[in-house]
């Protein structure tokens, strides 16, 4: 519906999240909300209400792309929203998430030392030395950097896609969206 709802303002959370992570990297852990909530909606509720309404990134893209009119609204090439690409992109992102968990495990075991930098696209090193993380365990810090890197990288892809394609272009290949839609489809096949 056209009328404004409270969830249309959830884009503010995206800005708060990235700002908090800029001030102190430990706030990156809050990004796990975006992993858990859509799964809970899909597994318990059997719906994609998170994507449809409560996703802060989705609302961010809607606000800046649609409401503020920043999107050029070009049609996406078909392969970008094909099932093959969506599944491959999801596999890649979860492999990267798995690698974040793995390095966190290594740091926790004392095998590796903390990489205290945010890596953009896994290659561009953004030094993040101003955050004081001495008070917590090294593995907590490691996971913060890895998760923040993943969130920032995907946010940049989402913004570029929003500017050039339709506002919610990211949603067509969002790994969480692909996963939750898969769960919903499985549930409905059974039920």
């Amino acid at each position, binding site marked *: 519906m056209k009328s404004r709802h409270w969830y249309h303002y959830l884009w503010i959370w995206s800005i708060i999240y990235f700002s908090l992570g800029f001030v102190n990297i430990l706030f990156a852990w809050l990004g796990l909300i975006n992993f858990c909530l859509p799964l809970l909606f899909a597994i318990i509720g059997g719906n994609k209400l998170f994507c449809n309404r409560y996703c802060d990134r989705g609302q961010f893209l809607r606000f800046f792309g649609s409401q503020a009119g920043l999107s050029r609204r070009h049609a996406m090439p078909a392969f970008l929203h094909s099932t093959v690409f969506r599944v491959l992109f999801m596999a890649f992102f979860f492999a990267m998430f798995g690698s974040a968990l793995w390095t966190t495990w290594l740091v926790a075991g004392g095998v590796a030392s903390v990489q205290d930098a945010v890596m953009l696209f896994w290659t561009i090193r953004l030094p993040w030395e101003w955050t004081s993380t001495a008070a917590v365990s090294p593995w907590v810090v490691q996971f913060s950097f890895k998760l923040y890197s993943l969130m920032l990288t995907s946010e940049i892809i989402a913004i570029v896609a929003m500017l050039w394609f339709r*506002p919610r272009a990211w949603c067509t290949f969002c790994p969480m969206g692909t996963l939750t839609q898969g769960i919903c489809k499985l549930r409905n096949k059974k039920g």
Partner: protein
Amino acid sequence: MSTIKRYAVVRQEGCVACGSCADVCPRGAISVWHGCFARVDVTRCVGCGRCARECPASVIHLEVRR
């Protein structure tokens, strides 16, 4: 004077169920069915085309009512 009446049609196998169509529909005529795909209530749809304009996967088009 006659006006061409249209309604939205979703190609469901390509739908990513993001819900951006439901968000812009002024009549609440389109909704995401159990997180699987978008579905149009043709009795409510007035064929304004906002959903088709917003759909990131371009799976919505308008058809003429017969």
